Structures are given as structure tokens and as C-alpha cells.
């Protein structure tokens, strides 16, 4: 299928959603280790200082922002009155995702 904007927006939205669903149980499990007290949590936090992990964290935030952007696009298409600019919502979603990704990168 030709890669026009709407199709790319869909693909990003779907792939980011699947990757997030795979990531979330890991995220929940790691946080749940806090139940074992501050010491176990600190061990985990030390691990997250590693550059590869930081990069992965940034990647996950980007995925989340991308998925949110795509989701807002779908909600706008389905619930707002129809206008021509709705086709450029994909661009708006992409910029939003990028902005959030940058903010997180700066904070890292």
C-alpha cells in the first residue's frame, strides 16, 4: 500500500501500541519491586543509570508520545465535525510526539 500520511499515522500508532503493551508488564514488575523495600528499588535504580537503559527509556517515552499523538488524531477524526484540515492531524500528532520526546531527552 502506498505510504501516504494517514497510513503512516496508523502504522506508527499501531506499532507503538503493541510495543508499549509489551513494555508495560516489565515497567509494572520493576516498580512492584519497591514492595520489597527501598534497598531493592535502589538496586534497580542503579541499573537504570546505564546509558543503554537511558536510551531505551527515552525510546519508550517517544513511543508513548507517538501513541498519544496518534490517539488524539483518531479521537479528532471520529468525534469532531468533519473539515479538510483533519487530514493534516497526522502532522500535528507527529510534532506533539517529537516535542515530548525532546523534553524528556533534555531532562535526562
Amino acid at each position: 500500500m502506498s505510504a501516504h500520511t494517514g497510513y503512516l499515522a496508523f502504522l506508527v500508532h499501531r506499532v507503538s501500541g503493541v510495543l508499549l503493551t509489551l513494555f508495560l508488564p516489565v515497567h509494572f514488575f520493576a516498580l512492584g519491586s519497591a514492595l520489597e523495600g527501598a534497598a531493592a528499588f535502589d538496586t534497580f535504580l542503579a541499573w537504570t543509570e546505564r546509558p543503554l537503559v537511558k536510551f531505551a527509556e527515552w525510546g519508550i517515552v517517544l513511543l508513548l508520545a507517538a501513541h498519544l499523538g496518534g490517539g488524539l488524531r483518531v479521537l479528532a477524526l471520529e468525534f469532531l465535525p468533519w473539515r479538510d484540515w483533519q487530514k493534516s492531524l497526522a502532522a500535528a500528532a507527529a510534532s506533539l510526539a517529537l516535542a515530548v520526546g525532546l523534553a524528556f531527552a533534555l531532562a535526562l
Partner: protein
Amino acid sequence: MTFRAQTFLWVAQRASAAVLALCVTVHLATMIYSIRGGLSAAEILSRTRGSVGWFAFYALFVLAVTVHAPIGLRPVLGEWLGWRGRSCDLFLLVVAMILAGLGMRAVFGVFL
């Protein structure tokens, strides 16, 4: 699954999406704010433990994810893997249970 049930899934997906849009925004803003200057367990837990407000917020977050993620996976499994029907729906229910279980364990661990 009846068309009525499928319609209800669509409604639940959009409703949970709206809740998540809010939760994710708050979560991302909070994370960007709090990771400045590094993190330590003691630091994090001192802010979060005993906070009923944040507990309620993250419990809602977990609930919304438990609804949204499996319903979102359903068309992916059907359209890209050709997996449809009762076995698929049961699998997705299990995914929901795992997310809810691990999620609430984390919420209890961090906030209570």
C-alpha cells in the same frame, strides 16, 4: 461476540483513551519534573508513600490501561495474525488480568 458487544468494546476503548490522554500527560509531566537531578529510592518513596491522591490517580491509570491495551491488541491479532474468535478473546482477558495484577502490585508498592 455480538455486534452489540463489539460496539461496547469500541466505546470502552475511546472512553479509556480519553482517561489515558489525561493520565499520560500528567505522568509524563511528573516524570520529566521529578527525574531532574537524579533519582533514589528513598527520595521517590518519601514523596509517594502514604499519598492517597496519587494512589487513586495511578489506580485509575492502571484500570484504564487494563481496558485499553487488550481491546487495542484485538484488531492487531485478528488482522495481522488471523487470530479471531473465542480463544483470542480469552487470551486478551488473560492479558488484562496480568496488566491489572502487576499494575496494582506496583501501585500498592509505591504508594501505600
